């Protein structure tokens, strides 16, 4: 008996430890009940994107505003401590308790949607969501881009606006200083980079300039010789860039550029290249997203007088074509919101999501709250100082603190970007759009489970081999030899790999 008496408090204290998490959950439930005032209904939402950059915040003003309009208030359930969105998402799925609304990547929403975790939305949208239905009916490609491999729609997508993803950039002030013309062809581009390297445009008496640098990878330059780094579309057929003959020429040239010091020697290891190389007046040309890159002109105008890092059109490649390999997708950015199969009233939820596709909801998500973040002047929205000036003028960041411009399900409005972007970026984007330099883009394809396995097993081997070989070629530790490379790809199972893509693309076209 004595023993038992001792055991009880000890066991009890252990149980307390073990049940710590569930305790916290039950108190938050009580909290929820007390907040209910009968008018506004509270639903749970899971949103954890960009590895913790976007975690649903109950205090976001735009969603409070939406609650007033729709009678539905959202409560975030994603863990704020996690810094890995896939992990957070997987944990949520594995827990078996799926919140009413789930934000996530298309491939996962589709995968678990087919298994029964999320509701197919086609009929719900048809009956209860006129604004979303408008996209389904009127925008060709909307369904194709977002539906699962079973032909059902499991998510309402976040749609970004504008076509331009990355662009070329060059230091116009360096060109002026060295009395050079804007390069129009790949040969001229080479000569300009060479001049940047040798003629000391930053004027510090040292040859420390780094003519070409990049924030992510070097191969955006491959199209200067007509070669693509990965999969691409040509005449309605999916091809793998490194398997094509142009890749040999491109690699030989890039290897030469690297050897001559025209390309950043640390291109594969450097982090935050723009910050360091532009900030120290060393970088000459690059390729990256125009909005954020053009911003460096403002940020650095005091420390580097006359800095003018502008968008340039892609130089004509060896075939006389100007090609920009990247482009924003038309419908859907692979992100969206799904409705849980456990949701009590899916009708209400789809109506709620429909609000964000309405004129009013779209404006709310793009510009924030009228009178607070923007005002209407001459019929157009204009941002207030709260957005433009606060926080060192980091406009996107400011808008996001209100809950606008977070990739929830809504259609982004490119006009919003024009309102704050550096004029250099706006001009560059217009130039790229008008010139239509974009390479044809592969749509978001969906794969069967078998195909998924081929992509994981063979695909990982192919990428491993390709990445490794390409770096060795460019850094010159191995001579470029496409024949050997292709033979090796065949051994790994390249034919099977590319067939998966071609089949998936065919299905996409036929759907």
């Amino acid at each position, binding site marked *: 008996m004595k*023993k038992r008496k001792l055991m009880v408090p000890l066991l009890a204290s252990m149980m307390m430890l073990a049940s710590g998490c569930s305790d916290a959950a039950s108190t938050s439930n009580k909290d929820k009940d007390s907040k209910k005032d009968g008018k506004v209904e509270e639903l749970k939402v899971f949103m954890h994107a960009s590895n913790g950059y976007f975690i649903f915040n109950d205090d976001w003003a735009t969603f409070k505003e939406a609650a007033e309009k729709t009678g539905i208030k959202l409560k975030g359930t994603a863990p704020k401590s996690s810094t890995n969105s896939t992990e957070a998402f*997987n944990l949520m799925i594995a827990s078996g308790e799926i919140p009413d609304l789930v934000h996530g990547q298309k491939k996962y929403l589709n995968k678990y949607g087919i*298994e029964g975790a999320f509701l197919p939305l086609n009929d719900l949208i048809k009956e209860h969501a006129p604004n979303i239905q408008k996209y389904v009916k009127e925008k060709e490609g909307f369904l194709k881009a977002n539906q699962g491999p079973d032909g059902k729609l499991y998510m309402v997508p976040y749609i970004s606006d504008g076509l331009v993803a990355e662009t070329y950039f060059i230091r116009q002030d360096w060109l002026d200083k060295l009395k050079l013309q804007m390069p129009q062809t790949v040969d001229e581009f080479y000569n300009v980079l060479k001049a940047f390297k040798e003629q000391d445009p930053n004027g510090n008496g040292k040859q420390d300039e780094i003519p070409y640098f990049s924030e992510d990878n070097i191969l955006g330059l491959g199209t200067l010789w007509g070669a693509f780094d990965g999969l691409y579309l040509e005449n309605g057929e999916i091809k793998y860039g490194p398997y094509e003959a142009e890749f040999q020429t491109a690699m030989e040239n890039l290897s030469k550029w690297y050897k001559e010091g025209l390309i950043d020697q*640390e291109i594969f290891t450097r982090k935050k290249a723009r910050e360091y190389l532009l900030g120290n007046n060393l970088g000459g040309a690059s390729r990256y997203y125009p909005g954020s890159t053009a911003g460096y002109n403002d940020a650095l105008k005091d420390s580097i007088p006359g800095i003018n890092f502008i968008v340039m059109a892609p130089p004509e490649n060896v075939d006389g074509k100007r090609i920009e390999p990247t482009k924003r997708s038309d419908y859907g950015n692979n992100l969206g919101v799904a409705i849980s199969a456990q949701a009590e009233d899916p009708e209400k939820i789809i109506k709620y999501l429909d609000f964000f596709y309405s004129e009013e909801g779209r404006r709310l998500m793009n510009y924030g709250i009228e009178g607070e973040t923007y005002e209407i002047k001459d019929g157009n929205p204009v941002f207030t100082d709260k957005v433009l000036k606060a926080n060192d003028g980091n406009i996107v960041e400011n808008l996001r603190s209100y809950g606008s411009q977070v990739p929830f399900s809504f259609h982004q409005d490119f006009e919003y970007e024009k309102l704050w972007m550096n004029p250099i970026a706006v001009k560059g984007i217009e130039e790229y759009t008008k010139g239509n330099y974009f390479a044809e883009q592969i749509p978001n394809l969906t794969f069967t489970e078998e195909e998924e*396995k081929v992509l*994981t*097993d063979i695909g*990982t081997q192919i990428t*491993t081999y390709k990445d490794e070989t390409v*770096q060795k070629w460019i850094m010159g530790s191995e001579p470029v030899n496409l024949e050997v490379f292709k033979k090796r790809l065949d051994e790994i199972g390249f034919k099977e790999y590319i067939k998966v893509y071609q089949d998936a693309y065919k299905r996409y076209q036929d759907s």
Partner: protein
Amino acid sequence: MQLNSPLSEVKETSAQANRSEFALKLQAVKTIVWRDKYLYFMLIPFILWYLIFAYKPMYGLQIAFKDYSLFKGITESPWVGFENFERFFRSEYFIRNLVNTFMINFWGLIFAFPAPIILALLLNEVKNVMFKKTVQTITYLPHFISVVIIAGIVTNFLAPTNGIVNIIIEKFGGEKINFLAMPEFFRTIYIGSMQIWKDVGYSAIIYLAAIAGINPALYEAAKMDGANRWKQMWHITLPGMLPTIMILLILNLGSFLEVGYESIILLYQPATYETADVINTYVYRAGLQGGNYEVGAAAGLFNSVVSLILVVLANRLSKKMTNVGLW
């Protein structure tokens, strides 16, 4: 000896004389447990810990043989036999990754394993207490720095354009070397930074404790016999540490297939895959990022089986050679 008395008590107090042998033994065990109840009581938390954190998760190991879906759960997912293992072995890179894993651990064993032993021996010979404590603290500190920051420091030090190492090389008239992009340097950099620099001070603590436990009378006797410092170290300190060294070596072999893949991911890049890509990093790229937990589980199970074999072999060898073993 103590076992006898309760046993006889049981015999005497028992009403039935013809109890079976088994019941008698059971009664004896009960008595013993009752006698040492506080010790068993203290054992409970640890048993619970093992049940919850070591044995219960083993139930999940079955996903290595299943086509696992997070949503369906462990029981509902269909069995697929050895398919996950096949997928894992079939890769062209399996052998290379296996060899790389072994090589990193092998060189780690040659260079990183003795490093804290040597440091402990050196510290033991230092007479100035201030100096000894200072050295100990400085070598011990990097253990608490996150691997992410260490990788950042390494990248900065070795950067070809403005890294301190290359600046020194250049000042002495050498050619700059892009260390992190050359496969032949990867193992040295990894073992040097992540295993030796980061952990040498921390691991030395165990050895210092082992040295502190050596009977001082042995040293006095050695001095009487005219042994110098070197001889004392060789014939007293080292043999005194040997049991500790052997146990740590066996434990080390147990994790021979486990490489800290987080720290490798931070330091490697495609150009150095040739020597840097290990089983865990490959599995990470192939599946874990996309939620293919079953392949990860298969790789983990494979690692565990190999580790178990290695530990058993090492233990047997150690017992034969030094009479020291884990069991």
